Protein backbone atom coordinates (compact mmCIF):
# COMPACT_ATOMS: atom_id res chain seq x y z
CA UNK A 1 0.00 0.00 0.00
CA UNK A 2 2.92 2.32 0.80
CA UNK A 3 4.18 2.10 -2.80
CA UNK A 4 0.82 3.16 -4.21
CA UNK A 5 0.39 5.95 -1.65
CA UNK A 6 3.84 7.47 -2.07
CA UNK A 7 3.82 7.00 -5.84
CA UNK A 8 0.51 8.84 -6.23
CA UNK A 9 1.47 11.41 -3.57
CA UNK A 10 4.77 12.33 -5.23
CA UNK A 11 3.08 12.49 -8.65
CA UNK A 12 0.42 14.88 -7.34
CA UNK A 13 3.10 17.00 -5.67
CA UNK A 14 5.03 17.25 -8.97
CA UNK A 15 1.82 18.02 -10.87
CA UNK A 16 0.89 20.90 -8.57
CA UNK A 17 4.47 22.23 -8.69
CA UNK A 18 4.20 22.22 -12.50
CA UNK A 19 0.86 24.08 -12.38
CA UNK A 20 2.40 26.62 -9.99
CA UNK A 21 5.41 27.21 -12.27
CA UNK A 22 3.12 27.54 -15.32
CA UNK A 23 0.95 30.09 -13.49
CA UNK A 24 4.01 32.21 -12.69
CA UNK A 25 5.66 31.89 -16.10
CA UNK A 26 5.10 29.37 -18.89
CA UNK A 27 8.56 28.21 -20.02
CA UNK A 28 9.75 28.38 -23.63
CA UNK A 29 10.85 24.74 -23.56
CA UNK A 30 7.98 23.18 -21.61
CA UNK A 31 8.99 19.52 -22.05
CA UNK A 32 12.50 20.06 -20.64
CA UNK A 33 11.09 21.93 -17.63
CA UNK A 34 8.39 19.29 -17.10
CA UNK A 35 11.07 16.58 -17.07
CA UNK A 36 13.12 18.61 -14.60
CA UNK A 37 10.12 19.16 -12.28
CA UNK A 38 8.95 15.54 -12.33
CA UNK A 39 12.38 13.91 -12.06
CA UNK A 40 13.52 16.47 -9.46
CA UNK A 41 10.42 15.80 -7.35
CA UNK A 42 10.84 12.03 -7.36
CA UNK A 43 14.57 12.16 -6.57
CA UNK A 44 14.16 14.68 -3.74
CA UNK A 45 10.98 12.96 -2.53
CA UNK A 46 12.52 9.50 -2.34
CA UNK A 47 15.69 10.83 -0.70
CA UNK A 48 13.56 12.63 1.89
CA UNK A 49 11.58 9.44 2.56
CA UNK A 50 14.81 7.46 2.92
CA UNK A 51 16.63 9.86 5.23
CA UNK A 52 13.47 10.91 7.08
CA UNK A 53 12.15 7.37 7.64
CA UNK A 54 12.02 8.00 11.40
CA UNK A 55 9.82 11.07 10.92
CA UNK A 56 7.54 9.14 8.52
CA UNK A 57 7.19 6.37 11.13
CA UNK A 58 6.50 8.77 14.00
CA UNK A 59 3.80 10.51 11.94
CA UNK A 60 2.10 7.15 11.43
CA UNK A 61 2.48 7.28 7.64
CA UNK A 62 3.08 4.18 5.52
CA UNK A 63 6.79 3.44 5.34
CA UNK A 64 8.84 2.12 2.40
CA UNK A 65 10.60 -0.78 4.07
CA UNK A 66 13.01 -2.12 1.40
CA UNK A 67 15.19 -0.80 -1.41
CA UNK A 68 12.90 -2.68 -3.83
CA UNK A 69 9.96 -0.62 -2.53
CA UNK A 70 11.83 2.62 -3.37
CA UNK A 71 12.59 1.29 -6.84
CA UNK A 72 8.95 0.29 -7.28
CA UNK A 73 7.82 3.83 -6.42
CA UNK A 74 10.39 5.19 -8.89
CA UNK A 75 9.21 2.95 -11.77
CA UNK A 76 5.53 3.68 -10.98
CA UNK A 77 6.22 7.42 -10.81
CA UNK A 78 8.19 7.42 -14.08
CA UNK A 79 5.34 5.62 -15.90
CA UNK A 80 2.79 8.17 -14.62
CA UNK A 81 5.05 11.19 -15.22
CA UNK A 82 5.97 10.18 -18.77
CA UNK A 83 2.30 9.47 -19.55
CA UNK A 84 1.45 12.96 -18.38
CA UNK A 85 4.29 14.52 -20.37
CA UNK A 86 3.22 12.65 -23.53
CA UNK A 87 -0.38 13.74 -22.88
CA UNK A 88 0.80 17.30 -22.27
CA UNK A 89 1.80 17.61 -25.93
CA UNK A 90 -1.90 17.30 -26.82
CA UNK A 91 -2.55 20.25 -24.51
CA UNK A 92 0.37 22.31 -25.79
CA UNK A 93 -0.25 21.79 -29.53
CA UNK A 94 -3.71 21.60 -31.07
CA UNK A 95 -4.57 18.37 -32.81
CA UNK A 96 -6.08 18.88 -36.29
CA UNK A 97 -8.52 16.01 -35.57
CA UNK A 98 -9.69 17.44 -32.25
CA UNK A 99 -9.97 20.91 -33.82
CA UNK A 100 -12.25 19.45 -36.51
CA UNK A 101 -14.30 17.63 -33.86
CA UNK A 102 -14.66 20.85 -31.82
CA UNK A 103 -15.83 22.76 -34.91
CA UNK A 104 -18.48 20.13 -35.69
CA UNK A 105 -19.52 19.92 -32.01
CA UNK A 106 -19.97 23.70 -31.86
CA UNK A 107 -22.22 23.64 -34.93
CA UNK A 108 -24.70 21.62 -32.81
CA UNK A 109 -27.81 20.00 -34.24
CA UNK A 110 -27.52 21.69 -37.64
CA UNK A 111 -24.15 20.13 -38.35
CA UNK A 112 -21.40 21.81 -40.35
CA UNK A 113 -21.26 22.12 -44.12
CA UNK A 114 -18.27 20.42 -45.75
CA UNK A 115 -16.91 23.52 -47.51
CA UNK A 116 -17.21 25.61 -44.36
CA UNK A 117 -15.46 22.99 -42.24
CA UNK A 118 -12.52 22.72 -44.64
CA UNK A 119 -12.31 26.50 -45.01
CA UNK A 120 -12.19 26.98 -41.23
CA UNK A 121 -9.72 24.13 -40.66
CA UNK A 122 -7.41 25.41 -43.41
CA UNK A 123 -7.04 28.70 -41.57
CA UNK A 124 -5.33 27.02 -38.60
CA UNK A 125 -1.56 27.25 -39.10
CA UNK A 126 -0.64 23.75 -37.86
CA UNK A 127 2.39 23.39 -40.14
CA UNK A 128 3.87 26.75 -39.19
CA UNK A 129 3.61 26.04 -35.44
CA UNK A 130 5.25 22.60 -35.87
CA UNK A 131 8.05 24.07 -37.98
CA UNK A 132 8.71 26.71 -35.35
CA UNK A 133 8.76 24.01 -32.67
CA UNK A 134 11.28 21.92 -34.65
CA UNK A 135 13.47 25.01 -35.16
CA UNK A 136 13.26 25.87 -31.43
CA UNK A 137 14.18 22.26 -30.60
CA UNK A 138 17.26 22.43 -32.85
CA UNK A 139 15.99 19.67 -35.16
CA UNK A 140 15.47 21.89 -38.16
CA UNK A 141 17.77 24.68 -39.29
CA UNK A 142 17.29 27.29 -41.99
CA UNK A 143 20.22 27.65 -44.36
CA UNK A 144 20.11 30.04 -47.31
CA UNK A 145 16.34 29.98 -47.51
CA UNK A 146 16.11 26.19 -47.27
CA UNK A 147 15.21 24.02 -44.30
CA UNK A 148 17.53 21.11 -43.49
CA UNK A 149 17.90 18.68 -40.59
CA UNK A 150 20.52 19.74 -38.07
CA UNK A 151 23.72 17.72 -37.65
CA UNK A 152 22.39 15.85 -34.58
CA UNK A 153 21.79 12.07 -34.70
CA UNK A 154 17.99 12.52 -34.18
CA UNK A 155 17.76 9.16 -32.43
CA UNK A 156 14.21 9.70 -31.17
CA UNK A 157 12.75 10.51 -34.60
CA UNK A 158 14.78 7.79 -36.32
CA UNK A 159 13.71 5.14 -33.80
CA UNK A 160 10.03 6.06 -34.31
CA UNK A 161 10.44 5.56 -38.05
CA UNK A 162 12.44 2.35 -37.60
CA UNK A 163 9.93 0.69 -35.25
CA UNK A 164 7.04 1.58 -37.54
CA UNK A 165 8.97 0.10 -40.45
CA UNK A 166 9.18 -3.12 -38.40
CA UNK A 167 5.42 -2.95 -37.90
CA UNK A 168 5.02 -2.44 -41.66
CA UNK A 169 2.53 0.31 -40.91
CA UNK A 170 4.71 3.15 -42.12
CA UNK A 171 2.75 5.50 -44.30
CA UNK A 172 2.45 9.18 -45.05
CA UNK A 173 1.49 10.84 -41.81
CA UNK A 174 -0.29 14.08 -41.14
Amino acid sequence: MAILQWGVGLFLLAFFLHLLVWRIHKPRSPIKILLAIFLGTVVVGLATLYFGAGVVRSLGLAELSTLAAYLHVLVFFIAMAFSYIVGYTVLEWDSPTLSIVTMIARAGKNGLEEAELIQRAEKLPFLESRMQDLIRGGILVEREGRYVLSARPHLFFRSILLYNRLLRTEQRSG
Partner: protein
Amino acid sequence: MLDYFQVAIAPIGLAINLAVQPLAARAFPRWGHLKLVFAGFSAGFLSVLVLGGFTHLYQEVPPAEMVAITLVNVITYVGFAFCFFAGFINPAKTSLRIRLFRELQQSKNGLSREQILVLYDHRRVIELRIERLLNSKQVVKRDGRYFLEGWFLRLAAAAVRSAKLVVIGKASEFA
Protein backbone atom coordinates in the same frame (compact mmCIF):
# COMPACT_ATOMS: atom_id res chain seq x y z
CA MET B 1 14.38 -11.24 -4.48
CA LEU B 2 10.70 -11.48 -5.40
CA ASP B 3 10.32 -7.82 -4.37
CA TYR B 4 12.75 -6.88 -7.14
CA PHE B 5 10.93 -9.15 -9.56
CA GLN B 6 7.70 -7.27 -8.72
CA VAL B 7 9.44 -4.04 -9.79
CA ALA B 8 10.40 -5.62 -13.11
CA ILE B 9 6.92 -6.96 -13.97
CA ALA B 10 5.58 -3.84 -15.74
CA PRO B 11 8.79 -3.28 -17.81
CA ILE B 12 8.67 -7.00 -18.75
CA GLY B 13 5.03 -6.52 -19.82
CA LEU B 14 6.09 -3.56 -21.97
CA ALA B 15 8.91 -5.59 -23.55
CA ILE B 16 6.40 -8.34 -24.43
CA ASN B 17 4.06 -5.71 -25.86
CA LEU B 18 6.87 -4.29 -28.05
CA ALA B 19 7.96 -7.73 -29.23
CA VAL B 20 4.46 -9.01 -30.03
CA GLN B 21 3.56 -6.11 -32.34
CA PRO B 22 6.22 -6.64 -35.04
CA LEU B 23 5.86 -10.43 -34.69
CA ALA B 24 2.10 -10.18 -35.18
CA ALA B 25 2.68 -7.87 -38.17
CA ARG B 26 4.69 -10.67 -39.80
CA ALA B 27 2.41 -13.52 -38.76
CA PHE B 28 -0.78 -11.69 -39.77
CA PRO B 29 0.13 -9.29 -42.60
CA ARG B 30 -3.51 -8.37 -43.14
CA TRP B 31 -3.99 -7.05 -39.63
CA GLY B 32 -4.42 -3.30 -39.43
CA HIS B 33 -2.55 -0.84 -37.24
CA LEU B 34 -5.03 -0.86 -34.35
CA LYS B 35 -5.31 -4.65 -34.27
CA LEU B 36 -1.52 -4.91 -33.91
CA VAL B 37 -1.48 -2.36 -31.11
CA PHE B 38 -4.32 -4.18 -29.35
CA ALA B 39 -2.60 -7.57 -29.71
CA GLY B 40 0.64 -6.21 -28.24
CA PHE B 41 -1.14 -4.42 -25.43
CA SER B 42 -3.22 -7.48 -24.51
CA ALA B 43 -0.19 -9.81 -24.49
CA GLY B 44 1.70 -7.40 -22.21
CA PHE B 45 -1.30 -6.87 -19.95
CA LEU B 46 -1.88 -10.59 -19.58
CA SER B 47 1.77 -11.19 -18.74
CA VAL B 48 1.64 -8.49 -16.03
CA LEU B 49 -1.34 -10.25 -14.42
CA VAL B 50 0.17 -13.74 -14.75
CA LEU B 51 3.62 -12.75 -13.47
CA GLY B 52 2.01 -10.78 -10.61
CA GLY B 53 -0.15 -13.77 -9.68
CA PHE B 54 2.89 -16.05 -9.84
CA THR B 55 4.90 -13.92 -7.39
CA HIS B 56 1.95 -13.70 -5.00
CA LEU B 57 1.93 -17.51 -4.83
CA TYR B 58 5.41 -17.41 -3.28
CA GLN B 59 4.98 -14.31 -1.13
CA GLU B 60 3.03 -14.08 2.08
CA VAL B 61 1.33 -10.72 1.80
CA PRO B 62 -2.07 -9.55 3.12
CA PRO B 63 -4.82 -9.43 0.43
CA ALA B 64 -5.03 -5.61 0.59
CA GLU B 65 -1.28 -5.35 -0.08
CA MET B 66 -1.61 -7.85 -2.94
CA VAL B 67 -4.36 -5.74 -4.55
CA ALA B 68 -2.30 -2.55 -4.09
CA ILE B 69 0.82 -4.11 -5.68
CA THR B 70 -1.24 -5.46 -8.59
CA LEU B 71 -2.79 -2.02 -9.06
CA VAL B 72 0.67 -0.39 -9.06
CA ASN B 73 1.92 -2.86 -11.69
CA VAL B 74 -1.18 -2.48 -13.87
CA ILE B 75 -1.06 1.34 -13.75
CA THR B 76 2.69 1.28 -14.47
CA TYR B 77 2.20 -1.05 -17.44
CA VAL B 78 -0.74 0.94 -18.86
CA GLY B 79 1.32 4.13 -18.41
CA PHE B 80 4.31 2.71 -20.27
CA ALA B 81 2.07 1.25 -22.99
CA PHE B 82 0.33 4.61 -23.41
CA CYS B 83 3.68 6.43 -23.65
CA PHE B 84 4.83 3.97 -26.25
CA PHE B 85 1.63 4.21 -28.29
CA ALA B 86 1.11 7.98 -28.06
CA GLY B 87 4.78 8.94 -28.23
CA PHE B 88 6.17 6.31 -30.55
CA ILE B 89 3.64 4.44 -32.72
CA ASN B 90 0.87 6.94 -33.34
CA PRO B 91 3.12 9.88 -34.33
CA ALA B 92 4.39 7.90 -37.32
CA LYS B 93 0.82 7.92 -38.62
CA THR B 94 -0.43 11.31 -37.51
CA SER B 95 2.40 13.63 -36.46
CA LEU B 96 3.19 16.56 -38.71
CA ARG B 97 6.66 16.81 -37.14
CA ILE B 98 7.46 13.21 -38.11
CA ARG B 99 6.12 13.88 -41.60
CA LEU B 100 8.35 16.96 -41.93
CA PHE B 101 11.33 15.04 -40.53
CA ARG B 102 10.82 12.22 -43.03
CA GLU B 103 10.47 14.60 -45.97
CA LEU B 104 13.66 16.44 -44.98
CA GLN B 105 15.52 13.18 -44.40
CA GLN B 106 14.71 12.14 -47.96
CA SER B 107 15.69 15.44 -49.54
CA LYS B 108 19.38 15.92 -50.33
CA ASN B 109 19.59 19.71 -50.19
CA GLY B 110 16.75 20.44 -47.81
CA LEU B 111 13.46 22.03 -48.76
CA SER B 112 12.32 25.59 -49.26
CA ARG B 113 9.18 26.80 -47.49
CA GLU B 114 7.30 26.67 -50.81
CA GLN B 115 8.33 23.04 -51.40
CA ILE B 116 7.25 22.10 -47.87
CA LEU B 117 3.88 23.74 -48.42
CA VAL B 118 3.42 21.79 -51.67
CA LEU B 119 4.43 18.47 -50.03
CA TYR B 120 2.38 19.10 -46.93
CA ASP B 121 -0.87 19.95 -48.76
CA HIS B 122 -2.78 21.32 -45.80
CA ARG B 123 -6.15 20.73 -47.46
CA ARG B 124 -5.32 17.05 -48.08
CA VAL B 125 -4.33 16.62 -44.41
CA ILE B 126 -7.65 18.09 -43.29
CA GLU B 127 -9.52 15.83 -45.73
CA LEU B 128 -7.53 12.83 -44.48
CA ARG B 129 -8.48 13.58 -40.87
CA ILE B 130 -12.16 13.93 -41.83
CA GLU B 131 -11.90 10.66 -43.77
CA ARG B 132 -10.49 8.89 -40.68
CA LEU B 133 -13.30 10.28 -38.51
CA LEU B 134 -15.89 9.10 -41.07
CA ASN B 135 -14.28 5.64 -41.33
CA SER B 136 -14.27 5.23 -37.55
CA LYS B 137 -17.96 6.32 -37.59
CA GLN B 138 -17.20 9.04 -35.04
CA VAL B 139 -18.51 11.57 -37.54
CA VAL B 140 -21.30 11.08 -40.07
CA LYS B 141 -22.11 13.02 -43.22
CA ARG B 142 -25.76 13.75 -44.04
CA ASP B 143 -26.87 16.00 -46.93
CA GLY B 144 -23.39 17.49 -47.28
CA ARG B 145 -23.14 18.37 -43.59
CA TYR B 146 -21.03 16.78 -40.86
CA PHE B 147 -22.44 15.66 -37.49
CA LEU B 148 -20.77 14.15 -34.45
CA GLU B 149 -21.94 10.63 -33.71
CA GLY B 150 -22.05 9.35 -30.14
CA TRP B 151 -20.65 10.87 -27.01
CA PHE B 152 -17.02 9.70 -26.96
CA LEU B 153 -15.39 12.35 -29.19
CA ARG B 154 -17.64 15.10 -27.85
CA LEU B 155 -16.49 14.19 -24.34
CA ALA B 156 -12.83 13.84 -25.40
CA ALA B 157 -12.85 17.26 -27.11
CA ALA B 158 -14.51 18.88 -24.06
CA ALA B 159 -12.07 17.18 -21.68
CA VAL B 160 -9.02 18.30 -23.70
CA ARG B 161 -10.42 21.84 -23.92
CA SER B 162 -10.97 21.97 -20.13
CA ALA B 163 -7.51 20.51 -19.44
CA LYS B 164 -5.97 23.11 -21.79
CA LEU B 165 -7.70 25.91 -19.85
CA VAL B 166 -6.46 24.54 -16.51
CA VAL B 167 -2.88 23.75 -17.52
CA ILE B 168 -2.03 26.12 -20.38
CA GLY B 169 -4.51 28.85 -19.54
CA LYS B 170 -6.06 29.02 -23.04
CA ALA B 171 -8.32 26.75 -25.07
CA SER B 172 -6.17 26.66 -28.21
CA GLU B 173 -2.56 27.24 -29.22
CA PHE B 174 -3.91 29.66 -31.85
CA ALA B 175 -6.17 31.55 -29.39
